């Protein structure tokens, strides 16, 4: 009986995964700065405490951009949870970014 209850509770509360992002920027250029701000804001609003953002400045580390096949900045890559997603641009279009990164309601 107890075991069943425990199982029920587990099913109702899904495991909350940590989101891992990698954001490629070009120093403090306008779009890069906007992308930085937008991704941080969205994560705070949608997945507070369950995210990790790794910012890569291509002006300092170009090899990382090459490795990740990044062609332009800003580029945001959702590394985890899989599947990987890449979003280009300053991330100003909140609705589209949320949909692309799978940050819609059910994960809250």
């Amino acid at each position, binding site marked *: 009986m107890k075991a069943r209850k425990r199982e029920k509770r587990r099913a109702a509360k899904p495991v909350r995964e940590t989101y891992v992002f990698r954001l490629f920027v070009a120093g403090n250029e306008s779009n890069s700065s906007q992308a930085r701000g937008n991704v941080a804001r969205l994560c705070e609003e949608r997945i507070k405490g369950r995210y990790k953002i790794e910012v890569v400045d*291509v002006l300092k580390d*170009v090899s990382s*951009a090459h490795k990740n096949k990044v062609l*332009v900045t800003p580029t945001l890559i959702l590394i985890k949870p899989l599947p990987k997603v890449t979003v*280009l*641009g300053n991330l100003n279009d909140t609705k589209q970014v949320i949909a692309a990164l799978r940050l819609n309601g059910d994960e809250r």
Partner: protein
Amino acid sequence: MEEAEKLIHALRTQQVDAIVGERHIMLVRLKQAEENLKSSRNQLRALASYLLSARENERAVIARELHDEFGQGLTSLQLGLSWISRKLTPGQQPLQKKIKSLSATTTNLMRSVKNIASELRPGVLNELGLVKTLKSEAREFEGHTGIRCRFKTNTAKAKFDRSAAVAIFRIVQAALTNIARHAHASRAHIALTKRKNGVTLTVTDNGKGISRKLVYGHDSLGITGMRERALALGGTFTLGGSGSSKGTILTVQIPLSRVIIGPASSRSRNTPQF
């Protein structure tokens, strides 16, 4: 969205800061650069316009000073010489001769002053208006140089804004000077044509033509001046071969709004017209 589509969208919406190449990072401040360029272009245009108007005003002041100071001084000198001449006795032949020569020099000086003053300030533009002034300019050019010069227009009854009239006149003057000095031409043609959206001025000749280097050279001050005047009016300026085997063609296009053509009654009384 496909990767390529995403890339194109980001580029089109100017959300891209840098392009990551094989070895280089190319920063692209598209929007910012575009805005900066636009703003500098407007500033340059305003500056050119201000400089030209300042130059015209300065010229007018110099012309007036020349006319008033030198003109009157030389007239007094002429009268004085004539008075001395009348006082001389028949025995003072060498003196009489000298006075005659000085009087001739004074007359030449008076003519020169008048020419310089009218060159500095085209008073004829005020009196006759642009079209008649250009006609007279073509006639005078033919008379001075022997190069056959014709003027054609469909704007005979049009009224021109003062700054536009001065600019067009100065461009024609400079173009004709260049033809006389450099073109080795036997024929020149000036056309001032009103079109749907603006006024087109063309000055052509059948001379030796002009090289690209000269057209865009920094030392070609006359050409630079003409270009500045056209740009200050929001127009365009082109200079090059006439397309046929020989000659040069200069084309200036000015938007109608900057030239103000039409019956005098339809515009503000404060706007000077020519």
